[in-house]
């Protein structure tokens, strides 16, 4: 079992590393620590952050690929190698257990009738039972409720156990802090109760659904019989990748260009302003669509560049992220330029210049630190917009590869299912729920970050 990483995997883990470095720096700096305590002192921000962390963990769990040897089928004894992520392994029972076609959540039978020939050759239309739903209790209602209670109590126990672990770590941390006596620091009270309740609800739901998924398709199955719950979870990675990595791609562009335009002024400023006005004047979706179209046709003409279809899909995702990044740096760049112009007029920058400091030292020491709040606010604000944009782009046909699991692709398919009679609603609903939870959490967290880090708000309070 050798792990292998796709390009997007590497980028996601690199982002994780960056986040860890950032957290370490925040913890080391007293002022930043206070600021972030203030962010988390809001109950909604605390709950939202936990939801975001959980999503990010799912995405990470889906971002290491192991080569696993399997037998493709009983008849064909030849060994084939498939790639699985830890998330796939945990849900491997759902990959194996696919049905023939649509089935509703918790259904025991297929959604539409099929024509059946019985032994006498009689033709009848029946709802066929699902192949992978445990039917040992379907006749007896009592055992069904007993089953639910049993799985719920397991989930409850798991959640309590995890909370106990968290509480112990938390208590230990407090104990250490008490022993060291952070002198002079007035800690802002954090809403730990909210945090515990959120963790409990999330863990309980996750474990409960997971346990049920062994015997049921908790969110139904899609047209080709794939489990929708698993599909939705696989889509988390795509959403997170597009939301988080795009901002990382655009950040260096916006920073370098914005600061140089604002600091060096003159012809550099003119060129950069011209650049972003031009890019800005092309409607975003159209520019992205045009770039993706061109990328698609290059990939079609050079099919030999890519080993497997997974690699191809992954590269397409990477291209999409790059294109989104390249087309969306203009807003932040303009903001940074304006702010740099303002800061470079302030006395301490003039003083630094008078001392003979080089421009790069001044930028690094005096300008960058004063821009960080803008950057951070822009990053968290953009995240939810990008997750939403992914769905729209996939719908238009210029988003991720149709084989890549994503909420946009799920909605796109669901659109065709709307025309069915009776309607197939569950894949749309689960895409909705998973996406809504992520975007809502991101929006709420972004609001709070903006409120705390924006110096203008602090003076009003």
């Amino acid at each position, binding site marked *: 079992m050798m792990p292998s990483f796709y390009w997007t995997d590497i980028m996601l883990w690199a982002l994780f590393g960056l986040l860890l470095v950032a957290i370490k720096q925040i913890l080391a700096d007293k002022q930043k620590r206070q600021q972030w305590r203030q962010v988390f002192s809001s109950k909604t921000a605390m709950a939202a952050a936990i939801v975001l962390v959980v999503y990010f963990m799912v995405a990470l769990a889906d971002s290491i690929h192991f080569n696993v040897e399997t037998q493709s089928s009983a008849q064909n004894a030849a060994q084939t190698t498939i790639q699985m992520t830890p998330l796939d392994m945990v849900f491997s029972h759902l990959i194996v257990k696919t049905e023939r076609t649509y089935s509703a959540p918790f259904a025991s039978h297929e959604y539409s009738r099929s024509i059946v020939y019985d032994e006498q050759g009689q033709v009848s239309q029946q709802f066929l039972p699902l192949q992978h739903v445990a039917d040992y209790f379907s006749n007896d209602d009592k055992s069904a409720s007993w089953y639910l209670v049993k799985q719920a109590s397991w989930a409850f126990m798991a959640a309590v156990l995890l909370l106990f672990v968290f509480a112990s770590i938390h208590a230990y941390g407090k104990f250490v802090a008490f022993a060291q006596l952070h002198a002079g620091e007035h800690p802002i009270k954090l809403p730990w109760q909210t945090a515990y309740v959120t963790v409990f609800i999330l863990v309980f739901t996750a474990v409960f659904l997971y346990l049920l998924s062994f015997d049921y398709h908790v969110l139904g199955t899609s047209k080709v019989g794939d489990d929708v719950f698993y599909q939705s979870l696989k889509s988390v990675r795509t959403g997170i990748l597009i939301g988080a990595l795009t901002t990382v791609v655009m950040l260096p562009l916006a920073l370098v260009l914005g600061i140089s335009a604002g600091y060096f002024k003159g012809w550099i400023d003119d060129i950069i302003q011209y650049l972003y006005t*031009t890019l800005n004047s092309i409607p975003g979706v159209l520019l992205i669509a045009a770039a993706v*179209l061109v990328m698609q046709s290059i990939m079609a003409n050079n099919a030999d560049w890519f080993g497997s279809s997974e690699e191809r899909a992954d590269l397409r995702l990477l291209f999409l992220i790059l294109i989104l990044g390249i087309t969306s740096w203009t807003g932040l760049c303009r903001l940074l330029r304006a702010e740099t112009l303002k800061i470079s007029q302030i006395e301490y920058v003039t003083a630094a210049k008078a001392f003979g400091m080089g421009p790069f030292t001044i930028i690094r020491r005096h300008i960058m630190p004063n821009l960080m709040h803008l950057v951070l606010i822009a990053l968290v604000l953009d995240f939810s917009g990008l997750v939403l944009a992914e769905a729209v782009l996939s719908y238009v046909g210029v988003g991720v590869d149709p084989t890549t699991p994503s909420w946009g692709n799920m909605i796109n398919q669901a659109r065709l299912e709307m025309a069915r009679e009776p309607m197939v609603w569950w894949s749309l609903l689960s895409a909705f729920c998973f996406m809504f939870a992520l975007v809502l959490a991101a929006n709420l967290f972004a609001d709070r970050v903006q409120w705390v880090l924006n110096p203008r708000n602090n003076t009003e309070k």
Partner: protein
Amino acid sequence: MFAYIVRRLLFAVPILIGVNLITFALFFMVNTPDDMARAQLGAKQTTPQMIAAWKADRGYDKPLFFNSEQGGIETITDTLFVQESVKLFQFDFGQSDSGRQISADVYERMWPSLAIALPTFIIGLTTNIALALLIVLFRGTTLDRTAMAVAVAIMSISGLFYIIAGQVLFSKMLNWVPISGYSDGTDFWKFLILPVLIGVFAGIGAGVRWYRSIFLEEIHRDYVRTARAKGLSEVRVLFGHVMQNGLLPILTGVVVVIPTLFMGSLIMESFFGIPGLGSYTIEAIQAQDFAIVKAMVFLGSVLYIIGLILTDISYTYFDPRVKLS
């Protein structure tokens, strides 16, 4: 004023040339005419002769930037780049892959786009401003906080869901309006009412939050304090003073959107089967019709630049503090 407008128009020229360069680079350099021909003719049985004929048919057989076969000024002008650019600037978009004139298509499809975008825009704007003022009136209360929570929730839902939910609820289950389609006749409103309402609703979250913050900023100004000190009621302060002054940033922010209304809404039009420019573009993207996409990119940026110029002019017109210089 006149000189100012002319100067602004002149300033737009390099930007349009830049846009043109970007689209040209995307559609002719990264994706060469040979690739286009192969994609269009089908990859399998294409001979070099067929590709050459296809290119000659469209005038794509010229060199990109520099024609060494010609002498004098023609070395520059008899090239693909100049020929294509001149056509674009004359709004002659050429033929689509299906052989239709793009300019004629654009003109025809502009009206359905406007029919849906204009009411959405006007109703949306008035609703958002009215709601925002109402919320500002109740600022700091539970109503304010609830409204803001609802606004964030509305913002967090993808527009695709509003469209699908609206279609299922009002067209499929209640059967009030047709699911999709368009008509030029007297029953046109039947086809428009649902997309317009969905468009308005989907925009409420972000819109109300935005306008609320503008009004809140305004409300801390000195003149508001003066007005209150005069003994004016809060409602009169809000609607008489704050709204008037808050409308300036709103107005200037809104003007830039007006020209782009021609483009319509990509997603909305394609979901509701409205034959506007939005669905035109989506169909072109899905059919990989580069000529149409190229034309729409150019048209979109022209409209955006017109919007920017209009914004500047309206700014100077409505705010006497801003002088044209």
